[in-house]
């Protein structure tokens, strides 16, 4: 039984290797099942057959965890949108970049990118609430791209002030935004691993 448990658990953990928490959960469940089967005196090979194909079981775990992971990713995207909005406003006010009468190309890209990104996040949130959690990915990717463009435009607008007294803060806010954006991209790539398996 020991070797069987090791082989099967190893294969299951390899399939779910992109999510250590989920892999550990699957291993615990498998161990409980095999222990129960051993207590019942069932042949290990029969226990494995009854548990099911490793890939099918891994697929079930991935699809079970996907909605929650998508909602967590939406949370990261929400923080990114909030940081982008607050820092964008702060930079505009601090550096006197507000000029609605004479918008520049960068200010239009900055504002429009943020609004499009925020709208995409609302779409993702609504899909998550309507039990269509797996459909959240596309608007999340769109939101990440739009907010990324907005952040870049916003920082390009503030570039001339980098050497001034607010330079360090401008740099810090930009780094925070890009760090959040990288976290979001990382999570979206992880979501793709779930989707490929599920």
């Amino acid at each position, binding site marked *: 039984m020991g070797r069987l448990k090791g082989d099967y658990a190893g294969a299951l953990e390899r399939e779910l290797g992109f999510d250590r928490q989920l892999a550990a959960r699957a291993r615990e469940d498998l161990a409980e099942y095999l222990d129960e089967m051993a207590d019942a005196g069932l042949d290990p090979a029969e226990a494995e057959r009854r548990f*099911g194909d490793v890939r099918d*079981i891994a697929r079930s775990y991935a699809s079970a965890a996907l909605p929650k992971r998508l909602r967590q990713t939406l949370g990261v995207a929400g923080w990114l949108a909030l940081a982008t909005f607050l820092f964008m406003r702060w930079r505009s006010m601090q550096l006197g970049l507000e000029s609605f009468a004479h918008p520049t190309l960068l200010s239009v890209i900055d504002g429009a990118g943020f609004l499009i990104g925020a709208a995409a996040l609302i779409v993702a949130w609504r899909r998550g609430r309507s039990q269509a959690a797996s459909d959240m990915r596309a608007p999340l990717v769109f939101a990440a791209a739009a907010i990324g463009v907005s952040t870049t435009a916003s920082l390009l607008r503030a570039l001339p002030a980098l050497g001034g007294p607010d330079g360090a803060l401008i740099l810090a806010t930009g780094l925070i935004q890009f760090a959040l954006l990288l976290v979001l991209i990382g999570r979206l790539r992880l979501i793709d691993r779930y989707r490929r398996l599920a």
Partner: protein
Amino acid sequence: MNAEMLKGHLDNVILATLERGPAHGYAVIEDIRRRSGGSFDLPEGTVYPALHRLELAGLIASDWVTPEAGRRKRVYALTPGGKTALKDRREGWAEFSRAVGAFLEPDKPWAA
């Protein structure tokens, strides 16, 4: 009944099983097998991810329990949200079953 037919209803079957009281994963599998008279030809391992899915959805909760004589086991129980969901799904199923039955049961008269 083949596995594909049951898959769409597995969550409901598990919720109904746990309505009788908290149970660990293998006890849920045994209860499903016993109550279905062995009709559900489903790989037993698929019950665990379904339990995990229901837990993530907040419909069931789990806790580790160590009996006096025996191994530590993860025991699942319905949450208040799970009880409400089961009630809603039962009503939905009854309605669906009536509607499909009107087509599939040849002796049943059509509703006026």
